[in-house]
């Protein structure tokens, strides 16, 4: 943008044969938009407006239903959320959920990286990855929970196991296809400067495949988060200290429906927060490098 304004006057001066150039009345090049137009141009603001609208609709509808056991109002939910956050157990629940999530996510990424590296290194490894992902990627992680309970018992071990399953396949698949699509030229440049083995993977393959890797991380995160909440709904991580899913389930049993809604809002809020985190990473890397697809 800044460049254009700098270049334009220079061009105008270079018009050939012009001692007696008439001053052309072009008019104003840059005209400020009205305040409303500028505000309306902000997509965040428009979205916020939509959220507010939905909240109003919620409040009106709950007033019509007038049955807090079925559909609590927004104000009741907000109060319950506030209460649970300040005096209640919600922060602990969130902490438990995030801790399990993070360990499962990181373990999944580690295994995925190893698998993708093996797959990139040899043809048989490549086949192995393809067979495994073809088999396990369509299998919802939560379907493994009964087995996990049998193997690891009631506790964080079982949840970590299903989380790893949720993360591993999408991340491995995307990382591998990212590695495979690194252009021949980029590869040759890397090898030209004598990069081989792990240095080649770290300095050439991973950054060059980063758009695909990031997509894998995002998908892996989305799967893991859904799986976690679903698994927690079935049982607490260990007796007495469950996560958000358990918080929702427990409050439903006690007919604290406003708290159930509060739990759901928390799940949404964490999801949105993670999504914006990924967007920041995307802006700072892939978009900044002009690699977004």
């Amino acid at each position, binding site marked *: 943008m800044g460049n254009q304004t700098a270049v334009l006057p220079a061009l105008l001066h270079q018009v050939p044969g012009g001692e007696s150039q008439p001053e052309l009345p072009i008019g104003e090049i840059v005209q400020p938009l009205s305040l409303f137009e500028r505000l309306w141009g902000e997509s965040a603001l428009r979205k916020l407006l939509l959220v507010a609208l939905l909240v109003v609709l919620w409040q009106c509808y709950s007033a019509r239903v007038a049955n807090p056991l079925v559909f609590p109002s927004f104000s009741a939910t907000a109060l319950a959320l506030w209460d649970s956050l300040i005096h209640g157990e919600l922060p602990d629940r969130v902490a438990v959920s995030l801790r399990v999530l993070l360990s499962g996510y990181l373990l999944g990424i580690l295994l995925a990286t190893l698998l993708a590296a093996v797959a990139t290194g040899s043809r048989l490894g490549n086949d192995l990855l393809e067979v495994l992902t073809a088999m396990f990627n369509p299998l919802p992680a939560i379907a493994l929970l009964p087995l996990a309970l049998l193997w690891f018992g009631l506790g964080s071990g079982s949840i970590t196991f299903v989380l790893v399953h949720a993360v591993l396949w999408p991340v491995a698949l995307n990382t591998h296809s990212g590695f495979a699509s690194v252009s021949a030229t980029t590869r*040759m440049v890397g090898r030209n400067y004598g990069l081989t083995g792990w240095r080649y993977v770290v300095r050439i393959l991973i950054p*060059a495949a980063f758009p695909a890797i990031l997509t894998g991380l995002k998908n892996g995160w989305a799967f893991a988060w859904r799986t976690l909440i679903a698994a927690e709904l079935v049982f607490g991580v260990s007796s007495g200290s469950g996560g958000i899913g358990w918080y929702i389930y427990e409050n439903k049993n006690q007919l604290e429906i406003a708290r159930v809604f509060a739990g759901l809002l928390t799940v949404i809020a964490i999801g949105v927060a993670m999504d914006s985190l990924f967007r920041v990473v995307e802006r700072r890397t892939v978009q900044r490098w002009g690699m977004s697809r």
Partner: protein
Amino acid sequence: MATAAAPLLKVEGVTLQYKTRESLVTATWKVDFQADRSDRLVLLGPSGCGKSTLLKAVGGYLAPAAGVITLDGARITGPGPDRVMVFQEADQMLPWLTVRQNVAFALTASGSCGKREAEDQAGVYIKKVRLEKFADTYPHTLSGGMKQRVAIARCLAMKPAVVLMDEPFAALDALTRQRMQEELLELWDESRFTMLFVTHSIEEAILLGNRVVLLSPHPGQVREIMEVDLDDPANRFHGRCDELRDTIHRVLFKDTGDYVI
């Protein structure tokens, strides 16, 4: 090892083959040529003559099926920083690094120098290609010609024994190409590096080379090796260029009639 008079790069009886899914293709057949120090050797020929494949073999990306390629008496067995390639494609720039980091990357990755010194050297060579204003921008913001300049800066910063250029200006518009050719010659004049340049343009070959290897296609074979004597001011009259062009044209297409490149 080799004396100063011995040729720097020797390609002797090189046959190159590569596999496709169905078949084994012979790209070049018993190719011989040599490059002395400070030579600007151009490989010229129509598509299918294996000139890019030859360049990749010199780069070490491809082992000859027969024959040997030696650099300063040592056999070439793999890619290495003593032979730096400049490609035609814009993705030879690593998009996650700025212009300066791209040049410095070459120096640190190859272990030629430490981080600090690499940055300084990068600055020097970026200045040589007149891109100091863009040193800290990312490659995707640059024009095609600027990207090629960075590639040339990155290559020269390595001070390779041979510079390998694979149609580096082919994707540029005519005006930019002309400018780049002139700048390349100026850079050569400064440090007199040895260069192997692949092109399918007769004009480019005459302009840039001091010696031109003419290749015929399917499989690539050397037709003739011509001295381009335009460096000598006595030969710089207008007709000499046309004369050379006609000769090359005749040699390249002597049995294929009106084959179009």
